[in-house]
């Protein structure tokens, strides 16, 4: 039950964005990915989710290789992706957005679907209040909650989260980190890209620092010395 990324290379035309990244994560582990803008963090996420095809290397979850699969196939193999722009369906209601998240599940029943939606509403009362509102009428924080809830409802084994707290109020940021802790407690592998390094390190088990498409440092998020090394590695 692990995520294995092995010597991954990604090109955008002539530019070599990811140059041999190797990464591993176990269930219930939160892995923080840090680095300056444009070093390939988002590309790494998109490649795992199937939106970008790697030029070389392997990605596998529980030994099941991903390379060559389409994003919807990868999703149904238990990979949830919360992109930076959230991708809420603007004209669909909160409830319809959540129901679409159920498509990730391979085995479904009417009762199971109802229970899943009810559990999400229990966990996110704000979404329950707004269940018949359309996606565009939600605040940024509510949209982020919905994006994360929509992934959680599919019961993924791996969740990729790209910059979830960007531009949000501190209270909502704390809520989002709390959700990530819950995912971890449920045995989900979380790969987190985040600019709020202090906040992200507090929920992470391990981290990877990326510089120009390479992993330049890995470390244990619980160790102070590692924090200092990380700051040095990714600052100018």
């Amino acid at each position, binding site marked *: 039950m692990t995520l294995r990324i092995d010597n991954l290379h990604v090109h955008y035309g002539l530019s070599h964005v990811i140059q041999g990244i190797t990464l591993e994560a176990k269930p219930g582990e939160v892995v923080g990915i840090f680095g300056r803008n444009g070093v390939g963090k988002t590309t790494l996420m998109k490649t795992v989710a199937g939106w970008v095809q790697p030029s070389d290397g392997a990605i596998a979850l529980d030994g099941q290789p991903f390379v060559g699969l*389409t*994003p*919807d196939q990868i999703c149904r193999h238990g990979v949830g992706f919360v992109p930076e722009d959230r*991708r809420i369906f*603007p004209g669909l209601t909160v409830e319809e957005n959540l129901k*679409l998240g159920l498509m990730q599940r391979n085995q479904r029943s009417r009762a199971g679907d109802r229970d899943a939606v009810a559990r999400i509403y229990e966990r996110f009362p704000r979404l329950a209040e707004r269940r018949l509102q359309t996606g565009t009428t939600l605040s940024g924080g509510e949209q982020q909650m919905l994006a994360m809830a929509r992934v959680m409802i599919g019961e993924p084994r791996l969740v990729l989260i790209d910059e979830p707290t960007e531009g949000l109020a501190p209270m909502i940021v704390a809520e989002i980190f709390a959700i990530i802790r819950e995912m971890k407690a449920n045995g989900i592998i979380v790969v987190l890209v985040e600019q709020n390094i202090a906040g992200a390190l507090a929920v992470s088990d391990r981290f990877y620092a990326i510089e120009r498409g390479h992993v330049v440092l890995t470390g244990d998020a619980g160790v102070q010395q590692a924090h200092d090394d990380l700051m040095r590695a990714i600052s100018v």
Partner: protein
Amino acid sequence: MSVDVVLQVVVGGVLLGGLYALVAFGLSLIYGVVRILNFAHGTILAVVGVMASVMFASWQLSPVLIALILVPGVFVIGALFYRGLLRPLERRSPLEATIGTVLVTVGALLILSDVTAVLAGPMQRNILLRAPVIEVGDIIISITQLAILAAIVVLTLAIHVILKTTWFGLAVRAVTQEPVAAELCGARSLGIKTLTFGVGSATVAMAAVLYVLTFPVDPYMGFGLTVKAFTIIVVGGIGNLPGALIVGVLLGVAEGLVGLFWGPEWSPAISVVLLLLILVAFPAGFRWRRA
């Protein structure tokens, strides 16, 4: 010219417009989900209309039975057309894919029209049912026309209910709004696109059987219909059923009235003229829906 004549023309225009709207629903459904402009869309109506009238003339089948035979057939052919000829183009670069889909759909339009003309003859045909008429004042409405109107209403409601309450409908709306997010949710895009192509084509086939019951069809009328459907979609909004119905009926009535006052040869031009006028007058488009 008496008011009755005008009203009589308006009744015909409403029927014609309702059928245009059905054609436009299918096109809009397909464009919204698959992002392909199917230039052969209106030609499906022409070909199915000709087939229906030939079946009626040869075997005296009831129009309902004809629809039950042709509509599922067109559903399957539409789905296979997408999978066999259009889907492979999606692997090409965007420019090649766009040109490729235009070539394939325009090619299908030409081939379908010509083959139909060779097999069934290029002349106009329709199905003439002997039906009682109802007279409201001096306006005459046949039971057939009422049945067509009822069928248009029922089909529109059915499409609405399918889009609003089923998983297929939810997936269609999701893919139309945010194709990337739909795949993020694990929606099986290939299956949804194939099904949508089939459903969109089947909608035109249903419109075709209704159309041929009051209006004449010929193998080469398809492209004009496609242009009208484009007009309805642009003005009414993509994936917007009420908008398409309103614009379709307005267009049908406008065609009827233009034909009455200026002569029938001006009718086909009205959709393009209306489209241009509306685009100039409302460059930002209408807001049909509440924000």
